[in-house]
């Protein structure tokens, strides 16, 4: 075989593999979308990969109605949780990186390990503590919980980012007599835009997609969308309306998917941030 033909064969093989993998990854999304647009009669008579003969948006309307409360709850949980967890993490990362405090490295070690402790370990004591303060099953309670479990990753993310900033900037500001907050507000934070974007992406998708914490701590009045979705789909008795289930599933995935599509390369930075070091 000539070199050119060998090369061509290799290219064909590469693209075939890439496309085959892309179809595997896209398959479930395709099935989800077409199922949500079918009538139930077509679902039970046709096959799962077939396009709908007579598309309908009725399942979407039913599901949007059922999930509207969950959607609002998720938004209400999301906004304060994202802001507070990032603020706490950014400030802690800054204090740990630039201000030599005794025991700081021990704190970092606990955070590094804490990021990996299964939530199950904390659930019972945390329920008791929040109940003691009357916060169990409240919006404040679930925001505190998300801030708590976001802390390790947020702090380490910001600390790592700050460790890449030139320390001379910080030293010069101190010589000029600027204090802790002044340096943070006028020098460090304005330089933090890229890492704040990464943190927002991580927290928005992470908190929106949370199930366990919402299930345990949010209470009946603040049930997030993921919990509501699972209730609608898996605890319904009698006939299951798969078209409505799939519409509800897409609606629940819509916010993080939108964040993903809009953020593009930033999302990749987010998931690899802190992971690939040194």
């Amino acid at each position, binding site marked *: 075989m000539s070199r050119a033909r060998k090369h061509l064969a290799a290219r064909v093989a590469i693209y075939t593999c890439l496309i085959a993998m892309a179809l595997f990854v896209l398959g479930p999304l395709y099935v989800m979308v077409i199922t949500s647009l079918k009538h139930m009669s077509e679902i039970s008579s046709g096959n799962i990969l077939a396009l709908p003969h007579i598309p309908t948006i009725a399942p979407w309307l039913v599901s949007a109605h059922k999930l509207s409360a969950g959607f609002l709850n998720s938004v209400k949980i999301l906004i304060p949780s994202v802001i507070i967890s990032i603020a706490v993490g950014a400030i802690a990362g800054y204090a740990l990186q630039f201000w030599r405090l005794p025991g700081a490295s021990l704190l970092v070690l606990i955070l590094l390990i*804490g990021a990996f402790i299964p939530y*199950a370990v904390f659930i019972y004591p945390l329920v008791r503590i929040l109940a003691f303060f009357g916060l169990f099953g409240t919006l404040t309670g679930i925001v505190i919980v998300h801030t708590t479990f976001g802390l390790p990753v947020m702090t380490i993310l910001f600390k790592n980012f700050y460790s890449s900033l030139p320390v001379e900037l910080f030293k010069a500001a101190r010589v000029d007599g600027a204090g802790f907050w002044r340096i943070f507000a006028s020098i460090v934070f304005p330089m933090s835009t890229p890492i704040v974007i990464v943190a927002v992406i991580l927290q928005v998708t992470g908190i929106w997609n949370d199930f366990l914490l919402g299930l345990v701590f949010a209470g009946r009045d603040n049930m997030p969308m993921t919990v509501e979705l699972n209730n609608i789909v898996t605890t319904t008795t009698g006939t299951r309306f798969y078209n409505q289930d799939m519409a509800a599933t897409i609606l629940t995935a819509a916010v993080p998917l939108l964040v993903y599509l809009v953020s593009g390369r930033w999302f990749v930075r987010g998931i690899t941030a802190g992971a690939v070091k040194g």
Partner: protein
Amino acid sequence: MMKIWLRRNFSALMALSPALLIVLVVYVGCTIWSVRISLTDSHILPSDHYVGLHNYVRLLNTDRWNTSVGNLVFFGFMFIIASLVTGTLMAILMDQRIKGEALFRTIYLYPLAMSFIVTGLIWEWILQPTLGIQKMMRNFGFAHFHFDWINHSSTVLYTVALAAVWQGSGLVMAIMLAGLRGVDDEIWKAARIEGISPVRTYISIVLPMLGGAIATVTVLLALTVVRLFDLIIAMTGGGPGDSSEVPAKFIYDYLFDHQDIGLATAASTLMLGFVLVFIGPWQIWQWRRDVRGAGR
């Protein structure tokens, strides 16, 4: 002396106080509290009566716990190995100066943006035999086509792993691709001059150089394994029987349904021990490297 130090660092300490409070109360306090409860005869309510390792003995004699641990180990190996292989393959293919790289990356990574509940529900729908793939193949004329793994206790874990790999391999791809892009071009040139085929260069030269990236990604995947809960809830509910039960669900059920907090905290303490043994050393190593790096 102390006063000056305090005045100079007061703001820093204030700023750190929320983080410090969370670390002390939750990461240290709740962990100790949870371990303590596991040593008492607490059932519906916590008790102060210590019973030593009684709950652990009970736990190890609970079939559902042993099954859950076995399931998690089995799932964990399958999921981690399959994700590593699939994701690395994706990364290598994307590293071949291909056209439309951004498009492929967008496709491979989108499942990562979704909740495990969403992933579980989609795959449950595709894999259940009455209306899913099995029925489609039968409609096509393969009357005896069988694909009902999700309904059988011996095969259900494969279906859960399939869904998890579908979601997780994009993460491997992203991290491995970043690693591949960091490999020096000189190495490729040298390999070409030596006449080593690209496949062999990847296997015996490039991939071994990416040990750090592989370790990182394995730890991240292991974290998914330990936390496995949502996917099971959405996809199988732990069934059929208890063939897809996992430790996190065991703990949840014994805390809130069976109200046996002694047993639940014993289970969570064992999970904690498992995590500390496997992930602790890796994290301590990273931390020491950071501390040393900061000293320079």
